[in-house]
């Protein structure tokens, strides 16, 4: 927390000399060691660490893939197969990277819905939250361009469909599309610029992640009660308490990740992407990766092209306004009995949209998509503002500690002497 000056005292003479010139050790100490963490955080709060791990994993595997990959329309597919067959452990690096994208989105969606459930987006964490939305949008762009790089059928046609969306923008649409393509259709220049941007964007994500963590360390972490830390007894120092929990959670997530990589490496992709790109043959179904499906369903729910593009964009941009659309004074849904129901309906609608996004846009699927899309926006524009006025929240505990003691059966609570000293070095 920036309000908490660091308690870091360099021990060596060099440490003192260096710290007085660049206080980076003190910054790390106050941010990742002494930083007070609510003691009641659940495993839903470990997804920040999991996401940090995934970002690093994607960058590391991606750097190695780029050493062998050839961003040329005539050679890209072959170079990926070269990685899969001839490069030592190339298959492992590529499957880690391809499935890593999916794992990244699994983690980010849990992270986002944890934030929705516990009201983490509310004051004073609005900027922290909006930076998170920015990261998500950058992630989507990165993942989309990454999927184009193997230059399979779904790469090519996915790129064609998605870049074509920009042509719906009045006046400048066609110009934007021709800049995206670098020509008059998706082709070699498109692949080249997508590769360049796919390598660039993760570092932009890393930059925004630093801002995201910085913004987190000003108000501190939210917690399942939604009420702030009131005394030292509510908190524990980040290290070792949160650190060891995060490491444990990351390793458990790695097991989940490994299951896909080693046993189901192609399940989350499309068979069509093992067919080299062919501009003359359109696949029977052009479907984006699973993590885009809810937005794809919203896009296709609107019969008008521009309307669909606007709806799809608005579906994400509307998140930015959540801190102000939600009128409830209570953060945590645990104390919002009515909102809890609407939260789970919203989750189900998002899953339904995902499923509808994988269906062909015909018949009842379209109508179901339209109903779900309408509900999706109603959640933000009607449910969130209205509930704050009509809902009677449950009484909040006086402190995190009090809440936590209630969780422990038998009421024995925490031994008095064991209460944390949040600024100890651990």
């Amino acid at each position, binding site marked *: 927390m920036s309000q908490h000056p660091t308690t870091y005292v360099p021990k060596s003479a060099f440490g003192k000399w260096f710290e007085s010139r660049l206080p980076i050790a003190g910054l790390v100490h106050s941010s990742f060691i002494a930083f007070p963490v609510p*003691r*009641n*955080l659940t*495993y839903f709060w470990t997804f920040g660490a999991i996401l940090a791990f995934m970002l690093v994993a994607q960058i590391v595997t991606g750097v190695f893939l780029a050493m062998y990959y050839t961003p040329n329309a005539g050679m890209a597919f072959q170079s990926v*197969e070269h990685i899969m*067959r001839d490069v030592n452990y190339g*298959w*492992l690096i590529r499957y880690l990277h391809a499935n890593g994208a999916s794992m990244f989105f699994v983690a980010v969606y849990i992270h986002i819905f944890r934030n929705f459930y516990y009201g983490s987006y509310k004051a004073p964490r609005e900027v922290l939250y909006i930076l998170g939305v920015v990261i998500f949008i950058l992630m989507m762009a990165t993942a989309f361009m990454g999927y184009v790089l193997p230059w399979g059928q779904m790469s090519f046609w996915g790129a064609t469909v998605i870049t074509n969306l920009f042509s719906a923008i009045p006046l400048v649409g066609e110009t934007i599309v021709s800049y995206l393509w670098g020509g008059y259709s998706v082709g070699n220049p498109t692949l080249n610029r997508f590769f360049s941007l796919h390598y660039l964007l993760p570092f932009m994500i890393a930059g925004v992640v630093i801002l995201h963590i910085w913004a987190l360390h000003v108000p501190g972490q939210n*917690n*399942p*009660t939604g009420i702030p830390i009131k005394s030292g007894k509510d908190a*524990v120092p980040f290290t070792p*308490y949160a650190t*060891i*929990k995060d*490491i*444990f959670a990351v*390793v*458990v997530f790695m*097991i989940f990740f*490994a*299951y896909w*990589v*080693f*046993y*189901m*490496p*192609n*399940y989350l992709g499309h*068979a069509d992407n*093992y*067919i080299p790109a062919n501009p003359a043959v359109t696949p*029977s179904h052009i479907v984006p990766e699973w993590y885009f499906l809810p937005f794809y369903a919203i896009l296709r729910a609107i019969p008008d092209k521009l309307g669909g593009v606007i709806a799809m964009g608005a579906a994400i941009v509307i998140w930015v306004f959540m801190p102000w659309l939600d009128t409830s004074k209570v953060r*945590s849904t*645990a*104390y919002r009995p009515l909102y809890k129901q609407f939260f789970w309906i919203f989750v189900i609608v998002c899953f339904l949209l995902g*499923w*509808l996004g994988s*269906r062909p846009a015909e*018949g*009842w*699927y379209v*109508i*179901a998509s339209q*109903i779900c899309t309408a509900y999706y926006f109603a959640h933000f524009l009607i449910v969130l503002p209205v509930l704050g006025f009509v809902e*009677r929240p*449950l*009484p909040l*505990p006086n402190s995190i500690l*009090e*809440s*936590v*003691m*209630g*969780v*422990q059966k038998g009421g024995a609570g*925490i*031994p008095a002497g*064991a*209460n944390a000293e949040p600024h100890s070095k651990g």
Partner: protein
Amino acid sequence: MMKRTLLIAAAVLGFAAPAFAAGETPVPPQLKWSFQGPFGTFDRAQLQRGFKVYREVCASCHGLSYVAFRNLSQPGGPEFSEAQVRALAAEYKIQDGPNEAGDMFERPGRAADHFPSPFPNENAAAAANGGKAPPDLSLMPKARTFERGFPWWITDIFRQYSENGADYLVALLNGYEEPPQGFTVPEGGHYNHYYPGHVIAMPKPISDGQVEYPKNEAGQPQVPETVDQYARDVTAFLTWTAEPHLEARKRLGFQVILFLIVLAGLLYFTKKKVWARVGGEVEGHATPPMTHNP
């Protein structure tokens, strides 16, 4: 209320629709494969038979361009001996060059060469095959699949069912039959029970007894020389060409996951010990009784 009724109606009809669609293209039967599951490995003899089928039947029209001859002797594949591979490669004519005079020339294949394609280019392949080029087979089992539908796409994750492409290919090779009454097969097409839309450009590629299999001591083939067996063998072979490191992948996966589980266990108890200093880990929130509402 109206909206809810519509939603339910939409959901019911939405789930019903794939059933109609499934009626058009039948679902391939799921077969037993030696390479399925977490400890799956290829059956060397089957891969060698499958290679024979590819070479004697498929190779006249279909390329295998991502596979090099040397791959055939690598561990985890058909594991022919290196001498066998060298002899095999030498039977192929590979175009090389240009030489010092600037001319292209043909030489016998080497182990490092890839399988030459049966046609010089895609247009030639299409021209020789009624307008549609036969696809390269290197990746075929990974490049084909069929719709699994709800809830099988969820159970597949736990069953590790990833042989859908292989099952489809066997079904396709077995799926040539007389068209049902009233079904007109267009000129140059062939009726196939499992091909989406039922009209496939490839004529029935293989018949019973067409490929001779190795004999046992009694002079009988080790496995039946039937279309079904050919289809299974060539599909197993192509599964290997599509995923040559499948065995290494599954073997390494078991080691990695075992290691991670042990590591996670150790970390779990370390975490417990660390948190014991502050009276143990407590999570979440309590909802106080409703009686004392503010």
